[in-house]
């Protein structure tokens, strides 16, 4: 039996959230006394893939057939299903992402597995298999017992401290026939912002709302984000107005983030916005209205004009 960890690669490296999943899955494996096996799909070097060992895995299975290049849900899930079967996986772990959700869902459907997402702690395996997960977009938690033979867990980002060792894991190539699957759903075009940090993966996020006044006024926010090495985000009206791209919009109907630091600039803090950001470790709010509801959810607040405050923060970061 094994814990199988489904990982995602970006530019040939494990995504940070996948490293967290490896660490989590390896701890579950240790708890259950079974092996921790990583599945990686896509192009990457053996040396980079072997780093899964640093985070507790004992073996990496690498599927890199030529047709596995684009993010194909059907093909990826087939690889996951076949690997879970061949490795006799009793637990399958991934980080939560739009692609992972889609892939894990199909695999759980095929393997008759109970699936629980947004998991925030290691499972309690003393009696049954109980996990704590975040529900209602972070407004509550539920302790859920998974009763199926195979158990699927999707881990929320930034919930477990990483433990890094020096071991490396052997990498084994695997091949699963997915050719007809990639044919039935063809990617015709990929439009991707280059050179920007991935928002769901980011540890630091600087976000702007309608208080930023218009797309032409975004520079002070971008300057702070650049100085910090932070990803940028926005509120829903901002993306609805096309001031910023849709994939930057956070909240109930947008991306859900849980960075170490979320800086909200000119955002009122509507409940639907908070739903996407309230699991951030530290929240900073800059708003000219002292009554803005966001201050109630904040750790640090500045009442002031964003256009006055942002340059001061950028200068202080540069002086750090």
């Amino acid at each position, binding site marked *: 039996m094994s814990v199988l960890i489904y990982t995602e690669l970006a530019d040939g490296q494990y995504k940070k959230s996948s490293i967290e999943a490896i660490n989590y899955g390896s701890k579950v494996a240790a708890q259950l006394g079974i092996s921790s096996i990583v599945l990686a799909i896509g192009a990457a070097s053996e040396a980079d893939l072997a780093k899964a060992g640093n985070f507790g895995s004992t073996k990496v299975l690498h599927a890199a057939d030529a047709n596995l290049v*684009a993010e194909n*849900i*059907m093909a990826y*899930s087939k690889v996951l299903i076949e690997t879970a079967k061949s490795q006799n996986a009793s637990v399958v772990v991934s980080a939560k992402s*739009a692609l992972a*959700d*889609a892939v*894990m*869902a*199909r*695999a759980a*459907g095929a393997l008759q*597995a*109970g*699936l629980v*997402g*947004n998991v925030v702690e290691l499972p309690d395996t003393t009696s049954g298999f*109980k996990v704590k997960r975040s*529900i209602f*977009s*972070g*407004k*509550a*938690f*539920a*302790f*859920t*017992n998974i*009763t199926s033979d195979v158990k699927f867990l999707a881990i929320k980002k930034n919930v477990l401290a990483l433990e890094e060792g020096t071991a490396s894991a052997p990498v084994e190539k695997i091949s699963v026939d997915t050719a007809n699957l990639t044919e039935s*759903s*063809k*990617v*015709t075009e*990929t*439009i991707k912002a280059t050179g920007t940090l991935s928002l769901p*993966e980011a540890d*630091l996020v600087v976000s702007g709302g309608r208080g930023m006044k218009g797309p032409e006024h975004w520079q002070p926010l971008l300057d702070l984000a650049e100085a*910090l090495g932070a990803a940028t985000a926005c509120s829903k009206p901002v993306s609805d107005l096309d001031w910023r*791209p*849709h*994939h930057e919009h956070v909240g*109930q*109907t947008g991306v859900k983030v849980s960075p170490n630091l979320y800086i909200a600039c000119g955002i009122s803090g509507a409940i*639907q916005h908070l739903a996407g950001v309230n699991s951030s470790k*530290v929240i*900073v709010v800059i708003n000219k209205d002292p009554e803005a509801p966001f201050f*109630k959810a*904040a*750790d*640090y*607040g*500045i*009442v*002031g*004009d964003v256009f*006055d405050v942002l340059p001061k*923060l950028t200068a*202080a*970061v540069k002086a*750090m």
Partner: protein
Amino acid sequence: MHTLFRISKVTILIQTFMKILVCISSVPDTTSKISFEENDTKFNKTGIQYIIGPYDDYALARAVELKETHAATVTVLNVGLADSEPQIRKALAIGADDAVRIDAEPTDSFFVANEIANYAKDKSFDLILMGRETTDYNSGVVHGMVGEMLGMPSFSPVMELNIDGTAVKLSKEIEGGKEKLETSLPCVMGCQEPIAEWKIPNMRGIMGARTKPLQVIAPSTGSLTAIEKYELPPAKGACKMISAEDAGSLIALLQTEAKVL
């Protein structure tokens, strides 16, 4: 696809009917204050306003739009107890033709997917539209599970959907951008904005919805997960205020006190 040969007085029309299934969840309104009862083992429904899942509303709106441009029928399905019927009626008022409610409390993704798949398996739906995720448990997986169970491709989160014959063009959000794809019917999708604009029922729709068929069927399977207890997060501490003149000092606090830089 059902190809009907209709013989009229002068011409023979070949019309293709598309059968669409829209799966809707009934969830607490997004502004609801969440609390629990019976020693934190049950969600407290008192005073909670229930709505069609916000993402499911996009799926429904796109399905109703497709009816305007294609010959199509829209069936709406909910796995839920009788208290979700107002949301089902609303979906009928918005433009669905008939409805099915599978009479069970939906707390487990696999169970919900299994019930949907069991219902749909012999009804030859061409398109199954869902929301990207429910706003109570935020799983985002039922569409993928249903796709696998029915042997159909599944896509999520879908932001654009166009159908021409059996050819399907869609775009879905990926990290940092979007991806355009081509596939064919039948398929399953989890939808999000801006796939369509939410629709508000009009008076005629509301009147008509009362007489549209709503079939209630008993569940045929069981759950693979069980919620044993709920918990609320600890109350947030007070917000530390920093004066705007001295804004720069925040950075030092983030470094030394909050230790996030």
